[in-house]
């Protein structure tokens, strides 16, 4: 079996200086620009109102009561439990007061605070989409169809799609990389470079942001859950908690440990 014939393409060295380098530099610069643009466009989230804060913290308090019940004596636990359950059923902890109990799920479009949040997300999206499409168009218009570099290692043919986008040559060795593919590679692979330049908390990489958005999941219009329901649920959870005390048998434990040491 004869060894595979090494494909030779004579590239103009100018390809390197005028395509490979410019694309890379432009990509890095756009990333930096995007980072600062996002920072500029970001509006600090509005501080929640005391009522809203009270609601979330009361809920958190109930969760703590549920998980940390061993820390306090039984009588204290029962007393707090009763207070929370009656309060939760009466809607005493709701941000809108007891009347808000029947309102149900809040409509995100009517809540100005939520609208603001959505606007912020939209601004971020615009800051991401605009440069991306611009650069893609720029590369397509000027550099489409160039083979600009050769990877120093062999690859399987599956990589052809990834590395030779925009070059419709079937027999070309996979190791040759087209300009459009180089754009995609830099798009996905520059995160460490941004980390180095901008610090680890940067907003430069759009891919990461998109992934985050997907993880956050769902429809931004879905809105929050009905707070009343959340409280009633928590009250039910609290009701079925089985109490035990962390102080049970603590003397024996301490004695055992101290005598083991002594």
């Amino acid at each position: 079996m004869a060894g595979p014939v090494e494909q030779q393409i004579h590239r103009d060295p100018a390809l390197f200086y005028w395509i490979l380098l410019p694309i890379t530099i432009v990509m890095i610069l756009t990333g930096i620009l995007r980072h600062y643009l996002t920072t500029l466009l970001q509006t600090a989230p509005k501080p929640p109102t005391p009522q809203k804060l009270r609601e979330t913290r009361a809920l958190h308090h109930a969760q703590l009561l549920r998980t940390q019940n061993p820390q306090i004596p039984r009588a204290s636990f029962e007393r707090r439990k009763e207070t929370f359950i009656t309060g939760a059923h009466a809607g005493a902890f709701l941000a809108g007061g007891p009347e808000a109990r029947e309102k149900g799920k809040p409509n995100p479009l009517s809540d100005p605070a939520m609208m603001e949040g959505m606007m912020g997300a939209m601004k971020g999206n615009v800051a991401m989409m605009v440069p991306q499409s611009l650069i893609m168009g720029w590369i397509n218009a000027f550099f489409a169809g160039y083979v600009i570099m050769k990877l120093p290692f062999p690859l399987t043919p599956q990589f052809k799609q990834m590395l030779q986008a925009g070059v419709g040559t079937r027999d070309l060795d996979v190791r040759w990389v087209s300009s459009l593919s180089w754009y995609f590679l830099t798009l996905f692979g520059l995160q460490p470079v941004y980390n180095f330049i901008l610090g680890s908390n940067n907003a430069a990489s759009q891919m990461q942001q998109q992934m985050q958005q997907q993880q956050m999941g769902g429809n931004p219009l879905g809105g929050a859950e009905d707070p009343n329901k959340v409280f009633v649920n928590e009250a039910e959870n609290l009701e079925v908690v089985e109490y035990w005390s962390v102080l049970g048998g603590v003397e024996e434990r301490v004695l055992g440990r101290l005598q083991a040491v002594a």
Partner: protein
Amino acid sequence: MAAPASFLQPPTDSNPQHTLALSQRAAAYSKSQQSSFTLPYPLSLLSNTESQEKWATYENIFLACLRTGDNDSAYLCLEELTDRFGRTNERIMALQGLYKEATAQSQEQLEGVMREYDEILKANGAVFSIRKRRIALLKSMGRAAEAMSDLVSLLDVSPTDAEAWAELSDMYLQQGLYEQAVYCLEEVLLVMPNAWNMHAKLGEVLFLSAQKMEGGDQLKTLVESMRRSCRSIELCDDYLRGYYGLKLSTSRLLEALDGAVKPQKSSSDPVAGDLAPPSVESVKKLNQVATAKLSEIVRRASSGEKGWDGYNEAEVKAARELIDKSAQKIER
């Protein structure tokens, strides 16, 4: 802890040496931060002087300087912090208020600071740092009742604030309202279940409250106080206050058990879910263990042994007194 004053440890009430050392190093530190040599623009980006430690240090030095009366140095630190975080930062607002309170010369000036706080709170009622400063100011002006009612309303909004619960429990304790103090400490434990100092503190408060009770109630409270101290020791091996509380409560409990022979059987019924009362032997054993450990701590701390020098002097002294007292009793 004692040797080089760490910049990262906040200066507290109970550790004046640390505070003094910290404030004395203020000038040297601020000089070290302004190095005369900086790289030209693009390279200066690479050498980053920002760090959390730096600003924590500035804050600690600020507090220490205020405590020692070095207001000028404190002002410099405050300026640095304000330049970095801006005037609208909640923490900075509180620090600025603190500076004004500390440098106020007269009652009127304090009232002025109070009015400023009120104004900030009118604009935004959810600035907790300022609300807390206002409460502290009320307290230091001797208006404890107002401070307490303010604190209660703060805790209504934010029932998971351990710091505020602890402060409220202290205030109740000063008024002698033990039951309320206990309630507040239990809240602290809900938020911070492994805070051994809070377990010990709850034990102490329970012990105090037991002095006023009688019969079965007293016994039950003493037992709980003892168990809290045990838990504290379980969480932190060499905690002096835990052993101190354990020794106090066990000796008191032994006396009480001697006095009342049987009635505790009826007072603790298992249906209510109370823990079974401890056996007299285990109480005795705990007492011995606590005494032994306390004397060990006292011995080692006063001889300045390595690794045992972090104890508060006053606490060590109190522990020695307690040991001496109990020793005398035995001799008699």
